[in-house]
């Protein structure tokens, strides 16, 4: 059942690689769309079979693989991984849809896209630590290739930076997993949270620290965020969508599943520091975003800020905050994908993403009115306007964390306010005012304001429309997703609560109200 979520994309990639002859790009895109559509459809079937009331791993599958290494092929799904699998299915499809007219090597491109999708599914579903690591590393080279072959002018630098950072993160994670399994003598690498309690607090903190840095690079959190803005600016639009929407979630998923899930005791100890770290990351991301002149860089830095909320929520570890973390993962996936898509459209039409150059794109006649409207919607969602997905997740995160860490939560709220600042700057500069695509300060072309931008075909905005609808639907009807993840979120935090009760550590409490 779950294996099909891996077999469909991997099989699709193989099929595409072995497709006889030299099919046209359109044909390959169609094949990819069919395969990814199938994958999304199968994710929905999994959703239908999923029992939201059950907090345990469901639809489990297992197969012995390499016994002497403790590496077993074991898959399972719960309320934490299911939304992420759905997001992965949807966003990979979106990024395949918005891939048009790539200039070279379509076969390789689409095959890599499917491999990434399959690897991400595998990482979300893996119930064995080594299996997770395998899929986590598997996604590394295809994404490196996607950036370094189809990226911008400085792509080699950005891709290499991405590769090195992620490889380091992988090694830290592997080291921590080996340490956990072998310190405890439980070398089957299963997802059993109790095992870490046999360790002394010192070694728990050491292993947790390695995991935190490893996943902190992937998420990314300040000060390990350095690779992200470069990777985003150099990557093409579909790859940015994939990177922001899906691949960063591997980091946050790892944070919840492996850091919090496997080291509840040490987590409780570290939680206050983590909350402060989260607040710093949020503030840094927001302030850095204000300073950006490149629209894509700005959106990238906003990701750094918004991923900080997830760390805050998981530090608080109350049921509400955990639910908020899941919501934030989903809504950040949708919103950042939406923003990257729209920035991509602007870039294609105007040839620039420079905020000092773009003006008045909202012009109804010669500008990009529809794209602009969607942008305003996306920006509002990202800033946490009520009625959209961003609001629900931020509200849940802050509501769940404020009793535990008031200071860090308040600082994060300031960061949330700053989101409105930089995105208003973006909208104000690029979309409002008189239409112009040249630098006002440039004396030679000064005054050339009568640009006429090519109209955006409806098919170009369809993926963005779909995402925007998703953002609004989750904002207005959050109950569905909430029901899906509530049990898992509650089950997740029972672990730290339990251990805290056992050891008499005062635990930050919070109710579902």
């Amino acid at each position: 059942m779950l294996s099909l979520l891996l077999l469909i994309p991997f099989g699709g990639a193989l099929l595409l690689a072995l497709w006889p002859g030299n099919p046209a790009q359109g044909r390959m895109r169609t094949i990819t769309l069919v395969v990814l559509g199938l994958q999304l459809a199968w994710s929905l079937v999994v959703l239908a079979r999923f029992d939201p009331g059950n907090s345990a791993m469901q639809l489990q599958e297992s197969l012995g693989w390499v016994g002497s290494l403790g590496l077993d092929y074991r898959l399972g799904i719960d309320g934490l991984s299911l939304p992420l699998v759905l997001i992965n299915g949807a966003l990979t499809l979106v990024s395949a849809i918005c891939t048009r007219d790539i200039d070279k090597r379509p076969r390789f491109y689409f095959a890599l896209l499917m491999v990434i999708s399959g690897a991400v599914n595998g990482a979300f579903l893996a119930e064995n630590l080594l299996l997770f690591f395998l899929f986590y590393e598997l996604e590394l080279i295809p994404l490196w290739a996607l950036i370094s072959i189809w990226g911008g002018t400085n792509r080699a630098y950005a891709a290499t930076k991405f590769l090195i950072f992620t490889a380091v993160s992988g090694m830290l994670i592997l080291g921590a997993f080996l340490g956990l399994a072998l310190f405890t003598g439980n070398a089957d690498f299963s997802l059993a949270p109790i095992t870490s309690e046999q360790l002394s607090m010192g070694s728990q903190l050491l292993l947790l620290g390695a995991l935190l840095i490893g996943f902190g690079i992937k998420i990314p959190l300040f000060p390990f965020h350095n690779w992200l803005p470069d990777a985003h600016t150099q990557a093409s639009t579909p790859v940015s969508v994939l990177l922001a929407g899906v691949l960063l979630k591997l980091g946050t998923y790892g944070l919840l599943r492996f850091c919090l899930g496997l080291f509840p005791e040490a987590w409780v100890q570290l939680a206050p520091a983590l909350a402060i770290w989260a607040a710093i990351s949020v503030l840094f991301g927001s302030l850095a975003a204000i300073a950006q002149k490149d629209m894509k860089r700005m959106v990238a830095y906003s990701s750094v800020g918004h991923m900080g909320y997830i760390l805050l929520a998981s530090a608080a570890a109350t049921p509400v905050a955990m639910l908020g973390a899941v919501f934030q993962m989903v809504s950040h996936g949708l919103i950042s994908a939406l923003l990257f898509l729209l920035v991509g459209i602007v870039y294609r039409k105007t040839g620039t993403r420079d905020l000092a150059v773009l003006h008045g794109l909202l012009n109804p006649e010669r500008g990009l009115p529809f794209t602009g409207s969607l942008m305003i919607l996306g920006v509002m969602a990202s800033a946490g306007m009520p009625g959209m997905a961003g609001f629900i997740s931020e509200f849940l995160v802050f509501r769940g964390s404020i009793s535990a860490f008031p200071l860090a939560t308040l600082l994060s709220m300031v960061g949330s306010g700053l989101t409105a600042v930089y995105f208003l700057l973006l909208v104000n500069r690029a979309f409002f005012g008189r239409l112009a695509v040249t630098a006002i300060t440039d004396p030679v072309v000064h005054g050339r304001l009568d640009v006429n931008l090519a109209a955006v075909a409806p098919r170009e905005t369809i993926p963005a429309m779909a995402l925007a609808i998703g953002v609004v639907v989750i904002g207005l009807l959050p109950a569905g997703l909430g029901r899906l993840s509530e049990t898992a979120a509650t089950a997740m935090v029972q672990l730290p609560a339990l251990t805290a009760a056992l050891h008499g550590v005062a635990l930050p409490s919070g109710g579902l109200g």
Partner: protein
Amino acid sequence: MTLIGAYAVVAPTITSLQLNAGAIAPEMAVLIALLACLVVDLAGEGVASRWVPPICYAGLLSALVLLALQWDAPLEPSFLGSFLADNLAVAFRAVVAGSTLLSLLISWRYVESSGTPVGEYAAILLAATLGAMFLCGSTDLISIFISLETLSVSSYLLSGYMKRDARSAEAALKYLLVGSAAAAVFLYGASLLYGLTGGGTGLDAVALALKTSETPVTALALVFVLATVAFKIAAVPFHQWTPDVYEGSPTPVVAFLSVGSKAAGFALALRLLVGCFDSFETQWKLLFTVLAILSMTLGNVVALAQTSMKRMLAYSSIGQAGFVMIGLVCGTEDGFSAMVLYMAAYLFMNLGAFACIILFSLRTGSDRISDYAGLYQKDPLITLGLSLCLLSLGGIPPMLGFFGKIYLFFAGWADHQYLLVVVGLITSVVSIYYYISVIKMMVVKEPQEASDAVKSYPDITWSVAGMPSLRTALVACVLITAVGGVLSNPLFNWASATVAGTPMLQRAIASALPVALG
């Protein structure tokens, strides 16, 4: 009289020992092939190039079949205790024979295009194989030395085989000088051991003498023996010969040296250090920890700066040997099996990479990394094969090398070798960087950025003599590297069966256990 008495204590069954010549049947098959090659070579170049390849295949394949028959056979020392066909010997001899087979498959075209006689080349390579195979099973100082020299002398000849190439001659001379020094050092160490046993040369006798002896000479002997082993597996700081020899020697020879010769070196390390110097376990493990850390660091870091493909692979092989040493230092069941497993994985991924660079140099005459730019357009097979093999060497899933490397780290961590594993993890990241930069050259560079070598790339033909076998070897290696990882469970079982079927290793594991528990 006392001498005989002492010897009888050491080897009480001396009179009952059989010759048990069946143990070296695989070597006999190789030897017959070698003699046949020499005879055929007398008949002239045309006959030789027609008949030498099948003779070699027949000899090596029957050696592999005979080795398979020896697997798990009842253990009896042969040749009065100087050779033992335990599973360790069988496994490493299979790796050696396999590496020779693959090296031969990829060398015919190379040798013919360089205009040197095929028959001689095959005969010398088979002689080196013979030495390496004997080395894997030798349990006596004299037979160790003889097989070591058989391997070494043949290797000197091989590395100087391209007589017209000045670099090849330089490589041979360097290898000869350094290798002879290493042999002399080994002989001196062996003579000290001979003195300690009071006249015995069997490794059992040496082990017993080392346990009971109190003199500091034992430490000296350890250092000498260790230096020889480190030379053979090219561990830093005994690695200086490697880059020059690898760069100058004919590429198929380098392929053999980097796998077959190294496998024999590791077998020797196991026999001497684990089997013999177990009373000095702390000392040699400490020394090997240092060697492993140096090898991993220096090999992988210096590889970053290389512009020649062969030199890059030479330094990477130093780093890879460092990884394998983690298993040796562990001395646990997992450690030994991880070693065996990684050597087997290394056989395929490294020879696959060498097959690709030989094919590239046959078509372009170049060995520079920058000349690979834009290759995907012209030669997808080399691009795919070399990419997969390099990713596997870098330990990227789902290749075979990933599983091998994880197993080594797993074993190292289980044995509390934290420093080694951490250095291994960090240097793996470094190694990913330089392997990826080759892949970047081939895959990422666009046709307009292609190198001159690639722009004037010849049409791909496989009809020339020697090319089909090269393709077979390449495809086989790449396929095993790519798919072998996912289907690696039999390989894991084979590696643990190797360790289980080797009494010497079992003793070492058993003696290490109380320490681990306490």
